[in-house]
Every structure is written in structure tokens, then in C-alpha cells.
């Protein structure tokens, strides 16, 4: 091993720590904005924006109860697994014009795999709780995972196929490549409609991935008393809260990277550090807008679906919309 690669490894480790810290802080901050906006939409005053931070610090000092019939090492390990896997995805996502930290080491297919890990962490934790409520919640989470995977993969396949037709020599699944070639510029009018349908598909998958209303059946507080999280308290619950906050950033960043990879620094004729700062701020604005549409607005506007309705919604209407988008993009390429 040469000294250069050692230096690179050091940079990657420090970068990973910085990204993990920023991801958690920004995630909690955005969660606070989300709660505030939801409250304002319901004509309430709402909690202060730093409320998720206070919740986190409070939960850290609470007693950590492990139920008698739980499996302790799985029960305590699941929240860490959920948090670590969601932070890992952050390392593969581009921010503004900064390419991802681990850009050469994984692509969007890996992200699809990694996206299932936080959910699996919750499922394992739910089953290890030894509580009937948590078991039912974990089963629902598994049903949801099986349901939203197909539409999610359809979106990714559509992007990969289109890019492979236009740029056959590029690594089509790499997020850097997808980021450099926005889908809207590659397609004709028919494909443009297809891309809008794909965006709708991803926007429908996002609340399911994040377990937000209307797809929060696994954590349904009114029927399952917190579902998967029912037995969790103290530090473990705080870690799950962090994982949830990071997952919001992950899903919105993914949407931004796929559909809105535009930067504004070249419009303002900036360069160097200024361009970096402006693009990063613009990126934060973009993920805020995506979060507002995909999470906050939907969460306030609709009620919770039953688990069979969730499954149906993902397998039939959302999948059909996704396939329609894929077909329109294919037709667009074949006809032209």
C-alpha cells in the first residue's frame, strides 16, 4: 500500500465523519421545519424548530428498558444498524456539485440495496422486542418493503436505460453520471411526460420509505401504539429518531440527484469556493422543497391507509404509473 492511498483513506474517513455529523444535524433541523410547517398548515403554532434536538437530548438521558422476553443484542443492535446504514447511503449521494465521497465505490443500484437496510433494521428490532404490537408492526413493514421496491426499481431502470441509449460508453448507474446529465435534457416531449410520471412514482415511494403518513401503517400510533418502536425507550428510541431524520435527507437527496441535479453557480458566474457554497446552499433549498412536497404536504393532506390499501396502492396504481413512465421513455427513444 502506498502513502498516497493511505492519505486518500484518511480523507475518506474524515469526510465520512463530517458527512455523518452534518447529515444528522441537518436531518434533525429539517425534521423541526417539517413539524413546524405541518403545524402551521393545521393553523397551530407548532413546536420550535429545535424541538427534534431537544427530543433527542431528552431521550438520551432516559432509562433504557430492555423487555424481559426480548433478544437483548438484536434489540440493542437494530437501532445502530438503522442509523449506520442510513448514514452510509449519504456517503454515496452527491451534494450540489460536490461528487459523492465514495463515488468510485458504488452506484445507484447499491443505494437501492442500502435503502432496504434501515427498514430491515427496524423489522429485526421489532421482532426481537418480543411484543405482539411490535411483531405486527414488523410484519407490516415487511409487506411495505415488498410493495414499494418494484416502483422504486422501475424509476432507476428507466434512468439507466435512457442513459445507456444516449451515452453507451459511460457508467450509466453512477450517480455522478446521472447528476451530470439531467433526464429532462435527454428526452423528447413523450419522454418528458414519462419523466414526470417517474417523478410521481418516486414521490409516492418516498413517504413509504420513510414510514410517513399515509404509509405509516407499521408505526401506527392509534392502532399499534407505536408499532415497531413500541418497546423501545431512551437511547435506542433516540437512535431510531436520528435514523429517521437521516433517511429524510437520503430520500430527498436521491430525488434531487435523479430529477433536479441543476446548479446555479454558473448562472451567477461564480467559481471556486463561492460556487461550492452557493451550490450547497441551493442544494439544501432543493431538498427542502422536495421534502415539503413529498413528506410534509402529503402528511398533512391525507389520512393513514390500511396495510392492504398500502400494498395495493404500490403494486397496482403506483407501479402502473412507473411502468407507463418507463414505456413512454422507451417509446420516445425508439420513435425518434
Amino acid at each position, binding site marked *: 500500500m502506498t502513502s498516497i492511498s493511505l492519505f486518500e483513506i484518511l480523507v475518506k474517513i474524515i469526510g465520512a465523519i463530517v458527512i455523518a455529523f452534518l447529515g444528522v444535524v441537518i436531518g434533525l433541523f429539517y425534521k423541526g421545519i417539517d413539524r413546524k410547517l405541518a403545524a402551521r398548515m393545521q393553523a397551530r403554532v407548532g413546536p420550535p424548530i429545535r424541538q427534534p434536538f431537544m427530543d433527542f437530548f431528552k431521550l438520551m438521558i432516559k432509562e433504557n428498558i430492555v423487555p424481559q422476553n426480548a433478544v437483548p443484542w438484536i434489540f440493542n443492535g437494530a437501532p445502530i444498524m438503522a442509523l449506520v446504514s442510513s448514514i452510509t447511503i449519504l456517503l454515496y449521494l452527491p451534494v450540489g456539485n460536490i461528487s459523492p465521497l465514495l463515488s468510485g465505490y458504488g452506484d445507484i443500484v447499491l443505494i437501492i440495496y442500502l435503502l432496504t437496510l434501515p427498514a430491515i433494521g427496524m423489522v429485526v428490532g421489532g421482532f426481537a422486542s418480543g411484543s405482539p404490537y411490535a411483531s405486527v408492526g414488523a410484519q407490516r413493514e415487511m409487506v411495505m418493503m415488498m410493495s414499494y421496491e418494484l416502483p422504486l426499481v422501475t424509476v432507476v431502470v428507466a434512468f439507466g436505460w435512457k442513459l445507456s441509449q444516449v451515452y453507451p460508453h459511460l457508467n450509466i448507474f453512477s450517480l455522478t453520471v446521472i447528476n451530470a446529465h439531467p433526464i429532462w435534457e435527454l428526452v423528447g416531449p413523450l419522454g418528458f411526460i414519462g419523466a414526470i410520471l417517474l417523478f410521481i412514482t418516486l414521490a409516492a415511494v418516498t413517504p413509504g420509505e420513510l414510514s410517513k403518513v399515509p404509509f405509516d401503517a407499521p408505526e401506527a400510533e392509534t392502532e399499534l401504539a407505536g408499532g415497531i*418502536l413500541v418497546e423501545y425507550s431512551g437511547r435506542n428510541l433516540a437512535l431510531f429518531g436520528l435514523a429517521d431524520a437521516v433517511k429524510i435527507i437520503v430520500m430527498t437527496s436521491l430525488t434531487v440527484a435523479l430529477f433536479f441535479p441543476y446548479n446555479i453557480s454558473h448562472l451567477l458566474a461564480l467559481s471556486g469556493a463561492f460556487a461550492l457554497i452557493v451550490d450547497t446552499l441551493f442544494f439544501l433549498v432543493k431538498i427542502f422543497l422536495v421534502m415539503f412536497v413529498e413528506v410534509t404536504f402529503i402528511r398533512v393532506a391525507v389520512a393513514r391507509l390500511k396495510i392492504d390499501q398500502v400494498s395495493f396502492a404500490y403494486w397496482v396504481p403506483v407501479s402502473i404509473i412507473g411502468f407507463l413512465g418507463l414505456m413512454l421513455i422507451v417509446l420516445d427513444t425508439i420513435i425518434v
Partner: protein
Amino acid sequence: MKLNKYFERSLWVFHLNTGSCNGCDIEIVAGLTPRYDLERFGIKLVGSPKHADVLLVTGPVTSKMLDRVKRVYEQTPDPKAVIVVGACGTSGGVFYNSYNISGSVDKVIPVDVYVPGCPPRPEAIINGVLQAWIKLENLRESMKTAQAK
């Protein structure tokens, strides 16, 4: 067990009905409506006692609920506070000395704050939760002095 300053700004409340007539429960739910909006103080109604900092108990303890009340209290992680809402939970109310009632809530679990009324107004319940803040604040102060000594 230690307390930090974030604790009072983020009280999660678990609502336990030990045989109430639903009058107090409706008033608690009214506290979450846009008119009173408990969430602006960081107060959240949670579905599981494991998540809770404050137990909001309504109603006299019926014989059937006696064991459950104790278990829910034990399942709530420390540090915690207990608030009794309504005349029945405070003293037994109209069910005082009834054959199927084990008595008021404070006969079963330690109670920190009483909110009397039949039912109490949402303002009174919010005030009760604020009193629980003060209790936790005092707990924090006493721990500080204990540590200093």
C-alpha cells in the same frame, strides 16, 4: 439518573384511562387541537408508556385496572412524573367507596400533580403539565446540590 435542561421542553405524555367516563379524555384531546396546541411546548401524546415522560391518568382505579396501572407505571422509563386529571382520579369522585373501585390513583401509584374538575378545562390540564415541569426542575436542582455535596 440525571436530568438536563432539554427535559422540560420535550415532555411526551402517555394517556392512561383507568375507568374514566371519557369526559376528561375528551378534554385532554382538546389540548392537542389547534385552539390549545400542546405541541408548541414540545408536549406530544405517545402511544406507548415506554416512550413517555409523563403519565396522564384519568378516572378512578377500578378493580380490574389495579394491576394494569401498576404495570404501566413500572414500564414508564425514569425519570417520570404522574398527573391525575379529574375529580374521580383525585379522590374517587362520585364513585367514592364504590364496591368495584380500588380507590383514587394515589392509593396505587405515587402522584405528583392533581388536576381537579369534572372534567377540568384544557387550560387546567396544560397548567398541570407545567406543574410537572416544575417537579422535574426541582428534581434536577436537588440532584445538582446533591452532586455538589
